[in-house]
């Protein structure tokens, strides 16, 4: 009896099927592989993800720290620096009791040392001065002895808008560092810091 090729092929191939044993073996194979695949995590992927997370964490710490440093108020940073210098009491490079008298020595400065209006130098017992720096900018420090025999230091440097960005203008700022009072202000484009 003649049949279409298609029908004959279907009949012929559909007769073929896996035995129960073969079927069970293949089902078991899938189950085993699936279970072991679940058990054996793709460690290279896990490691990669863990590395990325770790890197993100480290970077976040780094940037948080940097952010903290950059977000830390500029006046706080200046105060900490000048306080540090003040405590060292390095030897004076030039002695003199007037600003005009010692200014000639500081010819390397990129600014003219000023007699500030918010702090009267003339009323102080000026001892002398030395070069220093504030936030990397060359500065002048003037050492004085107050009436109650306390040593004071007045720092002055040019007001660099980039370096001292964010510094509150037009007001005197007071910060306490290690128990010392630091007054800072900007006057005629000069940044002053006074500590005692």
């Amino acid at each position, binding site marked *: *009896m*003649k*049949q*279409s*090729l*298609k029908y*004959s*092929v*279907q*009949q*012929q*191939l*559909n007769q*073929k*099927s*896996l035995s129960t044993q*073969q*079927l069970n*073996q*293949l*089902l078991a*194979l*899938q*189950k085993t*592989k*699936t279970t072991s*695949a679940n058990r054996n995590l793709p460690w290279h992927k896990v490691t990669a993800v863990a590395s990325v997370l770790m890197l993100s964490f480290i970077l976040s710490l780094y940037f948080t720290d940097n952010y903290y440093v950059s977000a830390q108020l500029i006046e706080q940073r200046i105060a900490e620096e000048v306080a540090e210098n003040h405590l060292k009491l390095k030897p004076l490079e030039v002695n003199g009791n007037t600003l005009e008298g010692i200014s000639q020595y500081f010819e390397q400065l990129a600014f003219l040392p000023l007699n500030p209006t918010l702090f009267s130098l003339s009323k102080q017992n000026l001892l002398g001065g030395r070069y220093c720096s504030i936030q990397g900018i060359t500065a002048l420090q003037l050492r004085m002895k107050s009436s109650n025999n306390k040593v004071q230091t007045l720092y002055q440097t040019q007001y660099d808008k980039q370096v001292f960005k964010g510094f509150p203008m037009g007001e005197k700022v007071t910060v306490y560092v290690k128990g010392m009072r630091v007054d800072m202000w900007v006057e005629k484009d000069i940044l002053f810091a006074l500590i005692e």
Partner: protein
Amino acid sequence: MFEQDDLNKLYRFCYSLTLDETAAYDLLQNSLEKFLKNNSEKQHKLAFMYQIIRHQFIDEYRKQSKQKSEPFEEQEYIDFDVKTLESIHIDEDLIEQVLDYLDPLEREIIFYWAIEGYTTQQIADMLSMPKGTVLSKIHRMRQRIKQQFPTSQAQPSLHKEELKE
């Protein structure tokens, strides 16, 4: 996971390639292991398994016997599609011999056509061949069956309608 029906379908595909039940099972098992090793989360699992079986078969079996490659003019047979095979009628006792007479690639085409109901384009996609090449193979297969099994009949009346895909 492949269920019982899919496994049997895959087994039939393996059988259509190997024409041997033991070899078909081995082929299926090896292919399944390969599938589970790397690709168990594929979306079109069945189609992907066909590809794996095919490649596995080529690796394991076909390279053992040299395939004859026959030159052919694709354009000459462009009017034929897989449905032209439906015009062939054979004695029911001869089907085993017909399958045995065909080469594995022809049986693969037969399987996709008869069991899966694929169109010529779908078969070409599965075989990663140009449609023209598949058409040529279908044409040649039809001719060979008619020559080898003279009692088979081609019914031209069916043929014209089946040309429209």
